[in-house]
Each structure stands twice: as structure tokens, then as C-alpha cells.
């Protein structure tokens, strides 16, 4: 499946805007992403290993926090994950 990497995090993912992984669940996909790009880990997870509150993960167009099985939701090859961090710029 495809994981979209937002602009602020691309510098920690070899400047790519999307990464391809083979995964069974949302958390499996995120694990593979951070294994391929270890520098992403501290930007996505807190020291306690929780997904940071200012980073949202969407499975297709649904917020993973609102899916019944959350990060344990199973995924297929045609699904996409989007990482959406908060940005504030407007200047």
C-alpha cells in the first residue's frame, strides 16, 4: 500500500512524497515505514511510543482514531495511508 508523506516530514524519508509498503494492518504499515526510515520515528511517536497528538493518520479518507479497530484495522494493497501533521503557516 502507499503511504503519503507530508512536506514537513519528507526530509526524514529521503525526500520522497510517498512510500510503498506491504502490510496487514495500519500499525504494521507504520512500523514498516519507520523501519525503512528510522528518523521518522521520533516525529511520529512520543517517547512512550504513542502516535503524537499533532499527527493524524488517515486510512483513505477516514481518520484512524475513529475507525472501530483503530490502528489494528486491516489494510489491502489498494488502500492508502496519509500522514497529516498540523501546519500553521499563513504568512
Amino acid at each position, binding site marked *: 500500500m502507499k503511504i503519503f508523506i507530508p*512536506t514537513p516530514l519528507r*526530509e526524514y524519508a529521503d525526500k520522497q512524497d510517498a512510500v510503498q509498503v506491504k502490510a496487514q494492518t495500519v500499525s504494521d504499515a507504520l512500523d514498516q515505514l519507520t523501519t525503512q526510515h528510522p*528518523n521518522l520515528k521520533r516525529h511520529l511517536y512520543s517517547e512512550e511510543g504513542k502516535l*503524537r497528538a499533532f499527527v493524524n493518520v488517515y486510512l483513505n*479518507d477516514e481518520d484512524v482514531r475513529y475507525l472501530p479497530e483503530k490502528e489494528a484495522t486491516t489494510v489491502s494493497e489498494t488502500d492508502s495511508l*496519509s500522514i497529516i501533521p498540523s501546519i500553521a503557516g499563513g504568512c
Partner: protein
Amino acid sequence: MATLAEETVALPQLDNAEIARYSRHLILPEVGLEGQQKLKAAKVLCVGTGGLGAPLLYYLAAAGVGTIGLIDFDVVDESNLHRQIIHTTADVGRPKIDSAADKLKALNPHVKIVKHETMLTSANALEIIKDYDIVADGTDNFPTRYLVNDACVMSGNKPNAYASIFRFEGQASVFATKDGPCYRCLYPEPPPPGLVPSCAEGGVLGILPGLLGVIQATEVVKLILGKGEPLIGRLLLADALNTKFRELKLRKNPDCPVCGTHPTITKLIDYQQFCGIVPEEKPAAMQNGIPQISPLELKRRLDAGEDVFILDVREPHEYQIVNIGAPLIPLGELPNRLGELDPNREIVIHCKTGGRSQRAAELLKQSGFKNVVNLAGGITGWATDVDPKLPKY
């Protein structure tokens, strides 16, 4: 929105000049005479007259929004002009609010411009917002984003036409309507300071705020007219580099501390503190365990022949614009290139203004480097205080 649509009583009349001016709206069934009168009756507050505010304000004034409030306290800088199209070269140095008001009055003398030359704060936000129907958030920092959101919710759910931008990417939505989600439902907490670069540090395509500001203006006008499908409960993502638009579903969080069923935040708070921003004292000698050095002090030490290794952690394209001859390892590559640095030498790290170099210094310290120092103010500070011949970007 419903309240706006219901206010059909005593809508202001249009005079002949206004009928001529708005004729292309008047013949549009979705606007018509009544819609144009609703626009004239509407009061919209635009927070910020910068990149997003410029196109947003221009179009709201052109569309005939009757009362437009402006909030800004900044002055026009040369580096604003590549995107803040409401300001011109002749305006450099003028208060943005005056420059913007002049352009809007020139464009449409029928609209009333209200100037609030102040910073929006917890002390004045509710008082300012109460006179408006809709708020359009075009600010550039997290504390004000949360302040605008909370103030809109607490003012009886004033809709907030929201957009934010970074480099080539933008987000837009309409927050804080009665039944829709607010900004905190989407992002309960802000990122720690410094993690998400600002436009000044990360750069922004000059056209991007135009694209997003016009989306905000469209949402404002739709809310006033009560027509179409507003961006409530939806987050629009715009990627200008690949010209791709995507949409994500947003949900109202029943546990939201501000708009949830049992709100825990019912008064405006200290948003600087909420966003982890420590009040700036005189340039601190230490920040997060990293000693800070001023450009003048670094110059003095170099002139004295001291052994200081200077490292530049900006991007190669920034290095091309200006550099002080220091070796370059971009921040993102640093974790994998620590081996190139001598852990026993004093390392002074610099970037553009001091934010990324602070993070680089923290990273080196965590990796066992004993003597790392951050150049406060970065190469911009160096150009100001030490070598004014260098360009600033």
C-alpha cells in the same frame, strides 16, 4: 449559518451604483438580489493581512461583503511582496493594516473597513469577534490558530474559514460551526515549538496562499449566502507541486475540550504557554541545555584565533544563496553523517535563523557530543550584526 440565512428581515438596500457593480452576481440564481443584500449585511473578520489575508480580503471586498474587519500589527517587509499581493513596493515599512485598507477602499468604496491594529490576544479576542458573523483565520502561528478557534467556539459558534500553508502544501476547512468539528477536534495539541518550520524558515510558494486564501473567501461567501456545500467536517488538502487536491473526513470529537459535550476549557487560556512557547527574555545563554552564542561573540572568538568548528545545517539551495564558508550537512542528513564530525572539538551550528541549528545541536548532544553551541539568529543574525554585505533571504 442557519442564523445568517434566517435574517431576511431588513436586509440593506442596494443603490444603482451597487446594482451595476454586482450585476454578474445579481443574475446568478444562487446569489441574486437577496444574496447580494446578505453579502452587504455580513460582517467578516479577517485575522492577518498577509499571504492568505491578501487574496481573501480582495475578493471579499470585491464581492461586496458589507463590513470587513482587519487585524494585524505588522509592517510591510520586502520579503512579503512575493505573495502578499495586497501590499506594493511603495508600502514597504507601512503598517500592513493601512496598506490593506487603502487597497480595499480603492477597489470597493461601498464596503466598510474596520481596522484593529493590534495582536489578537486572549484579553481582546472575544470582544473583537463579537461584532462579526464569520471569522477567516489567515494567521501564521499555532498560538493564534488555537486562540481563534477557541474564541470562535466560545462566541456562540462563529464559523471559522480556515486555511494554512507550508511550502507547496495547504489545508483548508470550516471549523467551529454549531454541529461541525473545531480545529481542536482535528489537532488536540500543537506540535512542540520548532518541530514544524514556519514559512520564514521553510519557505512557501508565493502563489500557494493565493490558492488557499481564495478557497477561504469562497467558503465565507457560501456561508453568507447559505448556498452550496461548505467545507464543514471536511479537510481539503492542496498539493500545488503535483496539482492534486484530496479531501479527508473530519469528525466532531465528543470529548473535545472546547466544543465537546463536556468542555473542560470554557475560558480563553494562555496560548503561548499552551504551545510551549517560553516568553522571550534577552537572548538566553542556554536553551534546552544548549549554550547560545551571538554572531558578534562568534566573530570576536574567530578573530581571536580560537579553534571553533562551524557547521551549517541548512539545505544546499539555501547554501547557494549565501554562506559563511562553513561545511554543510543538512539537518535531515545529520543523524546518518555524525561520523564526519569530531566529537572532541567545539562545534558551533548555524542555520538561517537559529531554529534548525538548535534541533541539530540537541541531536548532537544526545548522540554524545560534549561541546555543541547554537548560533542564535543564524546566518540572518550574522548578516545583520557582523557582515551587512551578505544578502538576507
